[in-house]
């Protein structure tokens, strides 16, 4: 019997050690988060809507199509075309992420019939009035950050790494973020964002995820601005992944096409 116990123990110890060796570091978790494409904004096309709700319950719905491609990974180029609401219909937004320096961003307004370069330094600002900031969408705060795994929790029945992330960039809008990252597919299922005064200002919650052609997406998510009691429900209605959209489709010339 002793031999049996000893044998089992000897067999289990390496397995346990292997499991511990397989545990990712916080940096690896963050890197996997960056490698993921939760909103289909790095390679492919999506059709999406965002419902904005203010504290009085008033709603505003944006509808848009976004196309994107990777360039200089993990950076991407993306172009967004809005079809609703009426005052935004026909407008387009082009973003080309830059490794060094600010991203190039252009806005096309059909009333002006021309594209305008807008500041690439709007990282903390709301994207088209939603509760998602530019930084939330391009996750640049995570790219240059210090991370620490502070625990494991379940969301639903999915196990998540709980990661505390401190952005290193001085222009970050957050002092730190607390992420719940699913251990199996590294999608961020929940995120709490804290301002410079260490007050929680926003929460992000994934409400629905979907795997399409082998890649996982957050197809329904809710971003809540706690300070302004404002929230945005972002829904991806259609996802086409791994589409090799030509590079010339991510230009100012292309932005001015309908």
């Amino acid at each position, binding site marked *: 019997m002793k031999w049996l116990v000893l044998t089992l123990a000897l067999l289990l110890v390496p397995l346990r050690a292997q499991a511990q060796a397989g545990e990712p570091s916080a940096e690896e978790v963050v890197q996997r988060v960056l490698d993921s494409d939760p909103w289909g904004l790095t390679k492919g096309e999506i059709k999406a*809507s965002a419902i904005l709700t203010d504290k009085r319950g008033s709603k505003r719905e944006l509808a848009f199509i976004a196309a994107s491609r990777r360039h200089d*990974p993990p950076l991407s180029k993306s172009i967004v075309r809005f079809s609703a609401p009426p005052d935004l*219909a*026909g407008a387009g937004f082009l973003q080309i992420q830059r490794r060094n320096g600010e991203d190039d961003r252009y806005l096309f307004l059909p009333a002006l019939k021309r594209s*305008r370069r807008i500041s690439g330094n709007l990282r903390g600002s709301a994207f088209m009035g939603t509760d998602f900031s530019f930084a939330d969408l391009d996750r640049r705060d995570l790219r240059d950050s210090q991370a620490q795994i502070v625990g494991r929790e379940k*969301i639903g029945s999915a196990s998540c790494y709980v990661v505390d992330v401190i952005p290193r960039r001085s222009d970050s809008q957050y002092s730190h973020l607390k992420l719940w990252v699913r251990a199996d597919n590294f999608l961020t299922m929940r995120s709490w964002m804290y301002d410079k005064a260490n007050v929680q200002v926003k929460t992000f919650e994934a409400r629905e995820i979907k795997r399409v*052609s082998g890649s996982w997406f957050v197809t329904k998510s809710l971003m809540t601005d706690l300070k302004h009691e404002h929230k945005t429900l972002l*829904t991806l209605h259609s996802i086409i992944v791994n589409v090799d959209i030509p590079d010339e489709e991510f230009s100012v010339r292309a932005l001015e096409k309908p």
Partner: protein
Amino acid sequence: MLHRYRAQRHQPTLALAMLVGLGASVFTGETAAQEGAGEPFGDSEDLTETIPPSDGDVVESIEPSGDSTEAAAPAAEPEAKLPDARVTLSGYARQSLELVYGELARETRTSTEAAPSCATDPTPCLWRDVFLSRSQLVLSASYLQKRHFEATVSGVLGYTLHVAQRAHRYSAGIVDLARGELDPQLRDAYVAFFWPAVDLRIGQQRVAWGRADFQSPNDVINARDLRDPFFSETELRHQPTPVIRSSVTAGPVTFEGVVSPFFIPDRFDVYGSSWAAIQRQAPNEYQAFLGGASLLVDPSIEREFAQLWQHSARPLDNGKGTSAGTKISAELPGIDLSAYYHYGYDRTPYVRLDPAFLEYLYGATGAEPRPFPPNDATPFTPLPQLINDLRPNRSPISARYLRRHHVGFDLAAPLGPFVLRLDTAYESRRVFYRLNFNSFATPAVLGVAAVEYQNGSLGDLILVEFLAQHLLHEPVRDPATDLPLLAYERTTTAVAGTLRWTLGESWGVDLRGLVGINPETYALQPALRYNPTDSVTLRLGALIVSGEERSFGWYYGDNDSAFVQLRYGF
């Protein structure tokens, strides 16, 4: 608390995969992740999971009953290919009411202003609008075939009700003081073909060159609509014109060629409206002549008659009216550059009044302007003399358009939270007016330096533009009347600004204005904006115009207005 975890497909597989995933080492890098390598689920079939909310009330969160935000959101659907062909329809209906109180306001301060009222002063002057109701329906339709073809048509159906103030001498019996004006316009009507590096657009279209907002020196392709420069929607301030436009892209550089086969003049009123060329400050002789000339036709066709004064000569549609230009632009990391060349026409008509005609109009110095048509007191006798004095084949009033070369350059570059823009241009001939509308043409350089701040929301914008124009030839005073230029100096400088800011969820403020430094003048248009829904915008505001003598604000100083605008977009 019921935590309901729902895997729409392959639930056992998912549960097993999650268990396996805890110990699996799946850090295979970006490519592997994207291609599904290391994917813990072991198959590539699509899956959908619904995640319970953090507050724990899973049933309500998954199938929310109280949170209408989620209830309104359609569920994610299976992957569907985006449509190859689509038709888009859009437009808006707009109603504006404008109360033009400038003259009334001026009458209340006559003690400090020299200009008298048209209603009370015996000096003849033309009627002008004091109230306008503008109704517009704007429709646009496009057919799009993937990224290869586009056909677009758009138009405006406008109706304007003008209520004019009775002038002392020249309104009664000449025009109806309340008149309606139907104004249907075909705007865009073009087809476009797109290849990977080449675009071709043929038809009536808007080509917006340049980057400046208030006054763009390089925006020279399309004619302007000057009949309502402050109250109309931005997109209606230029007219789409027949153009063949092609662009070729090579890397970050785009070459664009534009040919306009026909000359399309600006749209403007000569007299009888708030922004017409002839205002109360124009020479009384002109007002008397134009007002009297209107007696020649029935009031029902008076507006058509008035249009005849816009130009006496126009480039013919036999090739002589053709204009062409090219643009080279580069979008580089952190900076955009464009250079322009255009050979076309200055769209401001070059007006010459024959000296004999001027003499006829002005008569003896100090005398009352000669009426037209003549009356019993001043019979037709001068007319034969006038006709005799005019040179052969020379109109008493000639208005033609001058060919000119246009060379321009602009750039845009972000700087922190701002974007800097610079627009410059040189024009070989540019037309200006003296107060008696005898024109002066000179080469000129123009520049606009702008700073813009945006915070990512379309509703918020701060834009400040510094405008300058220098005439390369010293303006010559009019030989007949010794009048200097109207609205411009040899070096004219101004600051223009646009403020658009959202206040709360539904309210906002707009401020658009021009403050002239030399000459001193201003036109300010503050407004309060209310958006009860996404589709409806209500604006309530005012226009305040003033300035030193001969400035824009002085000339159009009667146009102080209060306005309300309602727009419904669809």
